[in-house]
Protein backbone atom coordinates (compact mmCIF):
# COMPACT_ATOMS: atom_id res chain seq x y z
CA UNK A 1 0.00 0.00 0.00
CA UNK A 2 1.13 3.53 -0.70
CA UNK A 3 1.13 5.91 2.27
CA UNK A 4 -0.72 8.46 0.09
CA UNK A 5 -3.77 6.12 0.11
CA UNK A 6 -3.91 5.78 3.89
CA UNK A 7 -5.53 7.61 6.78
CA UNK A 8 -3.47 8.45 9.84
CA UNK A 9 -4.11 9.07 13.54
CA UNK A 10 -2.18 11.90 15.17
CA UNK A 11 -0.67 9.14 17.36
CA UNK A 12 1.06 7.69 14.24
CA UNK A 13 -1.12 4.67 13.45
CA UNK A 14 -2.40 4.23 9.87
CA UNK A 15 -5.61 2.71 8.54
CA UNK A 16 -6.54 1.47 5.10
CA UNK A 17 -10.29 1.07 4.66
CA UNK A 18 -11.96 -1.21 2.08
CA UNK A 19 -15.38 -2.87 2.18
CA UNK A 20 -16.02 -1.99 5.81
CA UNK A 21 -12.70 -3.46 6.99
CA UNK A 22 -9.75 -1.38 8.19
CA UNK A 23 -6.19 -2.68 8.02
CA UNK A 24 -4.14 -0.99 10.74
CA UNK A 25 -0.43 -0.44 11.24
CA UNK A 26 2.07 2.14 12.48
CA UNK A 27 3.70 4.75 10.27
CA UNK A 28 7.28 4.78 9.00
CA UNK A 29 7.80 7.95 11.04
CA UNK A 30 6.70 6.14 14.21
CA UNK A 31 9.09 3.25 13.54
CA UNK A 32 11.88 5.75 12.84
CA UNK A 33 11.18 7.62 16.08
CA UNK A 34 10.93 4.49 18.24
CA UNK A 35 14.04 2.64 16.93
CA UNK A 36 15.35 -0.64 18.33
CA UNK A 37 12.03 -2.47 18.62
CA UNK A 38 12.23 -5.67 20.63
CA UNK A 39 8.69 -6.75 21.40
CA UNK A 40 5.07 -6.17 20.49
CA UNK A 41 2.04 -7.20 22.50
CA UNK A 42 -1.10 -7.68 20.41
CA UNK A 43 -4.74 -8.46 21.21
CA UNK A 44 -6.63 -11.55 20.05
CA UNK A 45 -9.08 -11.84 17.18
CA UNK A 46 -12.61 -11.16 18.31
CA UNK A 47 -11.66 -8.38 20.72
CA UNK A 48 -13.16 -4.97 20.09
CA UNK A 49 -11.17 -1.77 19.63
CA UNK A 50 -12.17 1.85 20.15
CA UNK A 51 -10.75 4.81 18.28
CA UNK A 52 -8.21 6.64 20.44
CA UNK A 53 -7.92 3.76 22.94
CA UNK A 54 -4.85 1.48 23.31
CA UNK A 55 -5.06 -1.97 21.72
CA UNK A 56 -1.49 -3.13 22.27
CA UNK A 57 2.03 -2.13 23.23
CA UNK A 58 5.32 -1.90 21.45
CA UNK A 59 8.57 -2.19 23.38
CA UNK A 60 11.79 -0.58 22.24
CA UNK A 61 15.13 -0.68 24.05
CA UNK A 62 14.38 2.81 25.33
CA UNK A 63 10.69 2.75 26.27
CA UNK A 64 7.30 1.06 26.14
CA UNK A 65 4.67 2.78 23.96
CA UNK A 66 0.95 2.20 23.60
CA UNK A 67 -0.53 1.44 20.20
CA UNK A 68 -3.81 3.33 19.74
CA UNK A 69 -6.63 2.17 17.53
CA UNK A 70 -7.51 4.66 14.80
CA UNK A 71 -10.97 3.04 14.34
CA UNK A 72 -13.96 1.50 16.14
CA UNK A 73 -14.81 -2.16 15.51
CA UNK A 74 -14.06 -5.83 16.05
CA UNK A 75 -10.70 -7.45 15.32
CA UNK A 76 -11.09 -10.11 12.64
CA UNK A 77 -7.41 -10.86 11.99
CA UNK A 78 -4.09 -10.30 13.80
CA UNK A 79 -0.64 -10.38 12.19
CA UNK A 80 0.62 -12.92 14.71
CA UNK A 81 3.96 -13.38 12.95
CA UNK A 82 4.83 -9.71 13.45
CA UNK A 83 6.17 -9.85 17.06
CA UNK A 84 8.80 -12.36 15.86
CA UNK A 85 9.78 -10.30 12.82
CA UNK A 86 9.69 -6.69 13.96
CA UNK A 87 12.28 -5.76 11.31
CA UNK A 88 9.39 -5.83 8.85
CA UNK A 89 8.06 -2.66 10.46
CA UNK A 90 11.17 -0.89 9.28
CA UNK A 91 11.31 -2.36 5.78
CA UNK A 92 7.59 -2.49 4.89
CA UNK A 93 5.48 -0.61 7.46
CA UNK A 94 2.52 -0.18 5.08
CA UNK A 95 2.52 -3.74 3.72
CA UNK A 96 3.91 -6.79 5.50
CA UNK A 97 4.08 -4.68 8.68
CA UNK A 98 0.27 -4.52 9.04
CA UNK A 99 -0.90 -5.24 12.60
CA UNK A 100 -4.69 -5.78 12.72
CA UNK A 101 -7.71 -6.08 10.47
CA UNK A 102 -10.82 -4.59 12.03
CA UNK A 103 -14.46 -4.87 10.92
CA UNK A 104 -15.68 -1.32 11.35
CA UNK A 105 -18.67 -0.72 13.63
CA UNK A 106 -18.74 3.04 13.21
CA UNK A 107 -17.34 4.63 10.08
CA UNK A 108 -17.96 8.12 11.49
CA UNK A 109 -14.78 7.76 13.55
CA UNK A 110 -12.81 7.83 10.27
CA UNK A 111 -13.70 11.52 9.90
CA UNK A 112 -11.25 12.36 12.68
CA UNK A 113 -8.28 10.78 10.90
CA UNK A 114 -5.76 12.74 8.85
CA UNK A 115 -4.98 12.21 5.20
CA UNK A 116 -1.34 11.75 4.20
CA UNK A 117 -0.72 15.45 3.53
CA UNK A 118 -2.23 16.51 6.84
CA UNK A 119 -0.23 13.83 8.67
CA UNK A 120 3.02 14.96 7.01
CA UNK A 121 2.19 18.53 7.97
CA UNK A 122 1.65 17.48 11.59
CA UNK A 123 5.03 15.75 11.68
CA UNK A 124 6.87 18.65 10.10
CA UNK A 125 5.41 20.90 12.78
CA UNK A 126 7.17 18.69 15.30
CA UNK A 127 4.20 17.32 17.22
Amino acid at each position, binding site marked *: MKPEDLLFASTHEWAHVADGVATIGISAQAVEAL*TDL*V*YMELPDSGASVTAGEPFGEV*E*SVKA*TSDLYSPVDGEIIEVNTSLPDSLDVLGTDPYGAGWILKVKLSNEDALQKLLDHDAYQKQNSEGQ
Partner: protein
Amino acid sequence: MSESLQKTALHEWHSANGGRMVDFAGWSMPVQYSSIIDEHHFCRQSVGLFDVSHMARLQFADCKASLEALEKLTSRRVDSMKPGQIRYSLMTNDQGGVLDDVLVYRLPDANQDCFTMMVVNASNRQKIVEWLRKRLGPDIVFEDRTESTAIIAVQGPKANQIVSNHCEINPDSLKYYWGTTTKVCGCEAIVTRTGYTGEDGCELIVDNEDAAAIWKTLHADAVAAGGGACGLASRDTLRLEAGMPLYGHELSDELNAAQAGLNFAINLKDRIFPGSETIAAAKEQNTLPVRIGIQLEDKRAARQDCPILIDGNAVGVITSGTFAPTVQRSISMGLIDPRFSQPGTSVTIDIRGKHHAGSVVELPFYQRET
Protein backbone atom coordinates in the same frame (compact mmCIF):
# COMPACT_ATOMS: atom_id res chain seq x y z
CA MET B 1 14.43 22.41 21.83
CA SER B 2 14.41 25.18 24.40
CA GLU B 3 17.11 27.80 23.99
CA SER B 4 17.63 27.82 27.74
CA LEU B 5 19.29 24.38 27.72
CA GLN B 6 23.04 24.31 28.26
CA LYS B 7 25.17 23.09 25.38
CA THR B 8 28.42 21.16 25.49
CA ALA B 9 31.39 22.09 23.31
CA LEU B 10 30.37 19.19 21.03
CA HIS B 11 26.75 20.20 20.59
CA GLU B 12 27.24 21.42 17.04
CA TRP B 13 28.86 18.12 16.04
CA HIS B 14 26.02 16.09 17.56
CA SER B 15 23.36 18.15 15.77
CA ALA B 16 25.19 17.91 12.45
CA ASN B 17 25.65 14.14 12.79
CA GLY B 18 22.15 12.92 13.48
CA GLY B 19 22.19 13.30 17.25
CA ARG B 20 18.68 13.26 18.69
CA MET B 21 19.02 15.98 21.26
CA VAL B 22 17.06 15.77 24.49
CA ASP B 23 16.92 17.71 27.74
CA PHE B 24 19.06 15.83 30.23
CA ALA B 25 19.37 17.61 33.59
CA GLY B 26 19.16 20.98 31.85
CA TRP B 27 21.66 20.07 29.10
CA SER B 28 20.91 19.42 25.45
CA MET B 29 22.45 15.95 25.02
CA PRO B 30 22.40 13.29 22.27
CA VAL B 31 20.26 10.36 23.40
CA GLN B 32 21.20 8.45 20.22
CA TYR B 33 22.49 9.09 16.69
CA SER B 34 20.91 6.12 14.91
CA SER B 35 20.26 2.79 16.58
CA ILE B 36 20.77 2.34 20.32
CA ILE B 37 21.58 -1.34 19.75
CA ASP B 38 24.27 -0.51 17.15
CA GLU B 39 25.81 2.09 19.45
CA HIS B 40 25.77 -0.40 22.33
CA HIS B 41 27.68 -2.90 20.14
CA PHE B 42 30.19 -0.21 19.05
CA CYS B 43 31.28 -0.03 22.66
CA ARG B 44 31.17 -3.74 23.51
CA GLN B 45 32.91 -4.89 20.31
CA SER B 46 35.15 -2.01 19.26
CA VAL B 47 35.03 1.53 20.60
CA GLY B 48 32.33 4.03 21.52
CA LEU B 49 32.78 7.78 21.97
CA PHE B 50 30.51 9.48 24.49
CA ASP B 51 30.14 13.17 25.21
CA VAL B 52 29.57 13.27 28.96
CA SER B 53 30.43 16.93 29.40
CA HIS B 54 27.20 17.49 31.33
CA MET B 55 28.81 15.73 34.30
CA ALA B 56 30.05 18.43 36.67
CA ARG B 57 33.74 18.93 37.32
CA LEU B 58 34.91 20.65 40.49
CA GLN B 59 38.57 21.47 40.92
CA PHE B 60 40.17 22.24 44.27
CA ALA B 61 43.12 24.55 44.74
CA ASP B 62 44.90 22.96 47.70
CA CYS B 63 45.30 19.23 47.14
CA LYS B 64 46.18 18.09 50.64
CA ALA B 65 43.80 20.37 52.52
CA SER B 66 40.90 19.62 50.19
CA LEU B 67 41.33 15.85 50.44
CA GLU B 68 41.50 16.07 54.24
CA ALA B 69 38.29 18.12 54.20
CA LEU B 70 36.54 15.83 51.69
CA GLU B 71 37.55 12.83 53.78
CA LYS B 72 34.92 13.96 56.31
CA LEU B 73 32.18 13.93 53.65
CA THR B 74 32.85 10.81 51.59
CA SER B 75 31.84 7.20 52.26
CA ARG B 76 35.33 6.06 51.33
CA ARG B 77 38.81 7.17 52.32
CA VAL B 78 40.14 9.83 49.99
CA ASP B 79 42.93 11.33 52.13
CA SER B 80 45.13 8.28 51.60
CA MET B 81 45.06 8.44 47.80
CA LYS B 82 48.35 8.61 45.98
CA PRO B 83 49.01 11.13 43.20
CA GLY B 84 47.25 9.75 40.14
CA GLN B 85 44.66 7.80 42.06
CA ILE B 86 40.88 8.06 41.62
CA ARG B 87 38.16 6.74 43.91
CA TYR B 88 34.48 6.10 43.40
CA SER B 89 32.65 7.21 46.51
CA LEU B 90 29.25 8.20 47.79
CA MET B 91 28.42 11.58 49.32
CA THR B 92 25.79 11.06 52.00
CA ASN B 93 23.47 13.34 53.93
CA ASP B 94 23.07 13.33 57.72
CA GLN B 95 20.34 10.70 57.45
CA GLY B 96 22.62 8.31 55.51
CA GLY B 97 20.80 8.97 52.21
CA VAL B 98 22.88 9.29 49.05
CA LEU B 99 23.40 12.88 47.85
CA ASP B 100 25.40 11.66 44.86
CA ASP B 101 27.89 9.07 43.69
CA VAL B 102 31.10 10.80 42.71
CA LEU B 103 34.65 10.28 41.55
CA VAL B 104 37.37 11.94 43.61
CA TYR B 105 40.68 12.45 41.81
CA ARG B 106 44.14 13.23 43.13
CA LEU B 107 45.99 14.12 40.00
CA PRO B 108 49.52 15.20 39.22
CA ASP B 109 49.68 18.38 37.17
CA ALA B 110 52.30 19.48 34.64
CA ASN B 111 54.44 21.02 37.41
CA GLN B 112 54.72 17.75 39.35
CA ASP B 113 52.28 19.28 41.84
CA CYS B 114 48.93 17.73 42.69
CA PHE B 115 45.37 18.90 42.48
CA THR B 116 42.06 17.46 43.60
CA MET B 117 39.07 17.11 41.36
CA MET B 118 35.60 15.72 41.78
CA VAL B 119 33.17 14.64 39.06
CA VAL B 120 29.52 14.62 40.07
CA ASN B 121 26.26 13.85 38.29
CA ALA B 122 24.77 16.67 36.21
CA SER B 123 21.45 16.44 38.02
CA ASN B 124 23.18 16.88 41.41
CA ARG B 125 25.63 19.64 40.49
CA GLN B 126 23.91 22.48 42.29
CA LYS B 127 23.07 20.38 45.33
CA ILE B 128 26.66 19.15 45.70
CA VAL B 129 28.20 22.58 45.14
CA GLU B 130 25.95 24.01 47.86
CA TRP B 131 26.65 21.05 50.17
CA LEU B 132 30.40 21.42 49.75
CA ARG B 133 30.30 25.19 50.30
CA LYS B 134 28.33 24.65 53.51
CA ARG B 135 30.26 21.68 54.87
CA LEU B 136 33.81 22.42 53.75
CA GLY B 137 33.76 25.99 54.96
CA PRO B 138 35.32 29.08 53.38
CA ASP B 139 38.94 27.88 53.58
CA ILE B 140 38.52 25.11 51.01
CA VAL B 141 38.27 26.83 47.64
CA PHE B 142 37.09 25.06 44.53
CA GLU B 143 36.21 26.07 41.02
CA ASP B 144 33.31 24.69 39.00
CA ARG B 145 34.97 23.93 35.65
CA THR B 146 31.95 22.21 34.10
CA GLU B 147 31.24 24.93 31.57
CA SER B 148 34.81 25.54 30.44
CA THR B 149 35.80 21.92 29.84
CA ALA B 150 34.47 18.80 28.13
CA ILE B 151 34.64 15.11 29.03
CA ILE B 152 34.94 12.57 26.25
CA ALA B 153 34.54 8.95 27.34
CA VAL B 154 36.34 6.53 25.00
CA GLN B 155 35.16 3.04 25.88
CA GLY B 156 35.56 -0.44 24.49
CA PRO B 157 38.21 -3.06 23.71
CA LYS B 158 39.89 -0.78 21.14
CA ALA B 159 39.51 2.47 23.11
CA ASN B 160 42.94 2.77 24.66
CA GLN B 161 44.68 1.81 21.43
CA ILE B 162 42.89 4.57 19.54
CA VAL B 163 43.63 7.18 22.19
CA SER B 164 47.28 6.13 22.40
CA ASN B 165 47.74 7.04 18.72
CA HIS B 166 47.10 10.68 19.63
CA CYS B 167 48.29 10.82 23.21
CA GLU B 168 51.69 11.19 24.88
CA ILE B 169 50.88 8.12 26.95
CA ASN B 170 49.04 4.87 26.31
CA PRO B 171 46.06 4.75 28.71
CA ASP B 172 46.90 1.03 29.12
CA SER B 173 49.94 2.17 31.11
CA LEU B 174 47.63 3.62 33.77
CA LYS B 175 46.23 1.31 36.41
CA TYR B 176 42.46 0.95 36.52
CA TYR B 177 41.02 4.04 38.27
CA TRP B 178 44.22 6.03 37.91
CA GLY B 179 44.83 9.09 35.77
CA THR B 180 47.31 11.74 34.78
CA THR B 181 47.76 15.08 33.08
CA THR B 182 49.12 14.72 29.57
CA LYS B 183 48.48 15.81 25.99
CA VAL B 184 45.95 14.50 23.51
CA CYS B 185 46.25 15.75 19.91
CA GLY B 186 48.75 18.23 21.26
CA CYS B 187 46.27 19.73 23.74
CA GLU B 188 46.39 19.67 27.54
CA ALA B 189 44.21 16.84 28.81
CA ILE B 190 43.44 14.83 31.90
CA VAL B 191 43.39 11.16 30.91
CA THR B 192 41.88 8.68 33.34
CA ARG B 193 41.31 4.95 33.07
CA THR B 194 37.70 5.15 34.17
CA GLY B 195 34.28 4.59 32.66
CA TYR B 196 30.64 3.65 33.10
CA THR B 197 30.11 0.94 30.50
CA GLY B 198 31.68 -2.26 31.84
CA GLU B 199 34.39 -1.99 29.18
CA ASP B 200 38.00 -0.95 29.45
CA GLY B 201 38.79 2.52 28.18
CA CYS B 202 39.45 6.00 29.35
CA GLU B 203 37.94 9.42 29.84
CA LEU B 204 39.51 12.63 28.58
CA ILE B 205 38.91 16.00 30.19
CA VAL B 206 39.89 18.78 27.81
CA ASP B 207 39.30 22.50 27.37
CA ASN B 208 36.15 23.42 25.45
CA GLU B 209 38.09 25.03 22.59
CA ASP B 210 40.05 21.79 21.99
CA ALA B 211 37.15 19.38 22.40
CA ALA B 212 35.71 19.35 18.87
CA ALA B 213 39.06 18.76 17.15
CA ILE B 214 39.94 15.91 19.54
CA TRP B 215 36.47 14.37 19.16
CA LYS B 216 36.66 14.49 15.35
CA THR B 217 40.11 12.88 15.31
CA LEU B 218 39.08 10.08 17.66
CA HIS B 219 35.76 9.66 15.87
CA ALA B 220 37.45 9.07 12.51
CA ASP B 221 39.65 6.38 14.12
CA ALA B 222 36.67 4.87 15.93
CA VAL B 223 34.66 4.57 12.71
CA ALA B 224 37.65 3.00 10.95
CA ALA B 225 37.82 0.46 13.79
CA GLY B 226 34.13 -0.46 13.52
CA GLY B 227 32.95 1.83 16.31
CA GLY B 228 31.51 5.31 16.51
CA ALA B 229 29.65 7.91 18.53
CA CYS B 230 27.27 6.70 21.23
CA GLY B 231 24.40 8.54 22.84
CA LEU B 232 23.15 8.51 26.41
CA ALA B 233 20.62 5.73 25.70
CA SER B 234 23.35 3.19 24.92
CA ARG B 235 25.34 4.47 27.89
CA ASP B 236 22.32 3.44 29.96
CA THR B 237 21.99 -0.06 28.45
CA LEU B 238 25.76 -0.57 28.85
CA ARG B 239 25.83 0.47 32.52
CA LEU B 240 22.76 -1.65 33.23
CA GLU B 241 24.41 -4.77 31.81
CA ALA B 242 27.48 -3.92 33.88
CA GLY B 243 25.29 -3.73 37.00
CA MET B 244 26.21 -0.13 37.78
CA PRO B 245 23.71 2.05 39.67
CA LEU B 246 22.36 5.30 38.25
CA TYR B 247 21.53 8.22 40.47
CA GLY B 248 17.78 8.89 40.53
CA HIS B 249 17.11 5.20 39.92
CA GLU B 250 19.15 2.98 42.25
CA LEU B 251 20.49 5.85 44.37
CA SER B 252 18.68 8.81 45.92
CA ASP B 253 18.51 11.16 48.91
CA GLU B 254 15.80 8.96 50.41
CA LEU B 255 17.63 5.64 50.07
CA ASN B 256 20.17 4.71 52.72
CA ALA B 257 23.66 4.13 51.28
CA ALA B 258 23.60 0.62 52.79
CA GLN B 259 20.77 -0.33 50.41
CA ALA B 260 22.83 0.31 47.28
CA GLY B 261 24.81 -2.93 47.21
CA LEU B 262 28.00 -0.88 47.04
CA ASN B 263 29.83 -2.22 50.07
CA PHE B 264 33.16 -1.69 48.35
CA ALA B 265 32.42 2.05 48.34
CA ILE B 266 31.41 2.32 52.00
CA ASN B 267 34.23 2.27 54.51
CA LEU B 268 32.88 2.55 58.06
CA LYS B 269 36.02 1.37 59.84
CA ASP B 270 37.18 4.07 62.27
CA ARG B 271 35.52 6.69 60.11
CA ILE B 272 32.76 9.21 60.66
CA PHE B 273 31.02 10.92 57.75
CA PRO B 274 27.48 12.29 57.36
CA GLY B 275 24.97 9.60 58.23
CA SER B 276 27.67 6.98 58.86
CA GLU B 277 26.03 5.75 62.09
CA THR B 278 22.68 5.35 60.35
CA ILE B 279 24.38 3.51 57.50
CA ALA B 280 26.16 1.19 59.94
CA ALA B 281 22.85 0.48 61.71
CA ALA B 282 21.04 -0.19 58.42
CA LYS B 283 23.79 -2.57 57.39
CA GLU B 284 23.62 -4.37 60.72
CA GLN B 285 19.81 -4.67 60.82
CA ASN B 286 19.46 -5.54 57.10
CA THR B 287 15.71 -4.87 56.96
CA LEU B 288 15.62 -2.12 54.30
CA PRO B 289 15.08 -3.10 50.65
CA VAL B 290 18.36 -3.87 48.88
CA ARG B 291 19.51 -3.50 45.28
CA ILE B 292 19.35 -6.68 43.23
CA GLY B 293 19.38 -7.81 39.60
CA ILE B 294 16.33 -9.37 37.97
CA GLN B 295 16.09 -11.31 34.74
CA LEU B 296 12.74 -11.84 33.02
CA GLU B 297 11.82 -14.97 31.12
CA ASP B 298 10.25 -13.09 28.20
CA LYS B 299 11.37 -10.07 26.21
CA ARG B 300 9.25 -7.46 27.98
CA ALA B 301 11.33 -4.81 29.72
CA ALA B 302 10.55 -4.04 33.34
CA ARG B 303 10.79 -0.27 33.77
CA GLN B 304 11.25 2.01 36.78
CA ASP B 305 8.40 1.70 39.34
CA CYS B 306 7.10 -1.70 38.15
CA PRO B 307 6.13 -3.67 41.30
CA ILE B 308 8.05 -6.85 42.18
CA LEU B 309 5.66 -9.51 43.49
CA ILE B 310 5.97 -12.85 45.26
CA ASP B 311 2.75 -14.83 45.72
CA GLY B 312 0.84 -11.71 44.73
CA ASN B 313 2.40 -9.56 47.45
CA ALA B 314 4.56 -6.54 46.62
CA VAL B 315 8.07 -7.20 47.94
CA GLY B 316 9.95 -4.55 45.98
CA VAL B 317 10.09 -2.22 43.01
CA ILE B 318 12.03 -2.02 39.75
CA THR B 319 14.45 0.92 39.53
CA SER B 320 15.61 0.51 35.91
CA GLY B 321 15.38 -2.05 33.16
CA THR B 322 15.68 -2.72 29.46
CA PHE B 323 16.04 -5.42 26.87
CA ALA B 324 19.81 -5.78 26.92
CA PRO B 325 21.58 -5.94 23.53
CA THR B 326 24.64 -7.98 24.56
CA VAL B 327 23.14 -10.46 27.01
CA GLN B 328 19.98 -10.64 24.84
CA ARG B 329 17.70 -10.78 27.86
CA SER B 330 15.26 -8.51 29.60
CA ILE B 331 17.30 -7.30 32.57
CA SER B 332 16.50 -4.92 35.38
CA MET B 333 17.62 -3.72 38.75
CA GLY B 334 15.33 -3.18 41.67
CA LEU B 335 15.04 -2.79 45.39
CA ILE B 336 13.65 -5.83 47.21
CA ASP B 337 12.89 -6.90 50.76
CA PRO B 338 16.19 -8.53 51.87
CA ARG B 339 14.35 -11.74 52.81
CA PHE B 340 13.85 -12.30 49.07
CA SER B 341 17.17 -11.03 47.74
CA GLN B 342 18.84 -14.44 47.25
CA PRO B 343 19.82 -15.17 43.64
CA GLY B 344 17.49 -17.79 42.22
CA THR B 345 14.39 -16.44 44.01
CA SER B 346 11.40 -16.54 41.65
CA VAL B 347 9.52 -13.25 41.31
CA THR B 348 6.72 -11.81 39.22
CA ILE B 349 6.97 -8.34 37.73
CA ASP B 350 3.83 -6.30 37.17
CA ILE B 351 4.40 -4.55 33.83
CA ARG B 352 1.49 -2.27 33.02
CA GLY B 353 -0.99 -4.58 34.75
CA LYS B 354 0.30 -7.85 33.33
CA HIS B 355 2.40 -10.34 35.26
CA HIS B 356 5.74 -11.55 33.90
CA ALA B 357 7.87 -14.29 35.43
CA GLY B 358 11.47 -13.62 36.40
CA SER B 359 14.13 -14.36 38.97
CA VAL B 360 16.66 -12.61 41.16
CA VAL B 361 20.15 -12.92 39.67
CA GLU B 362 23.69 -11.93 40.64
CA LEU B 363 25.01 -8.59 39.39
CA PRO B 364 26.53 -7.77 36.99
CA PHE B 365 24.61 -9.21 34.04
CA TYR B 366 27.69 -8.77 31.85
CA GLN B 367 31.39 -8.97 32.63
CA ARG B 368 34.05 -8.44 30.02
CA GLU B 369 36.73 -11.06 29.51
CA THR B 370 40.02 -9.90 30.95
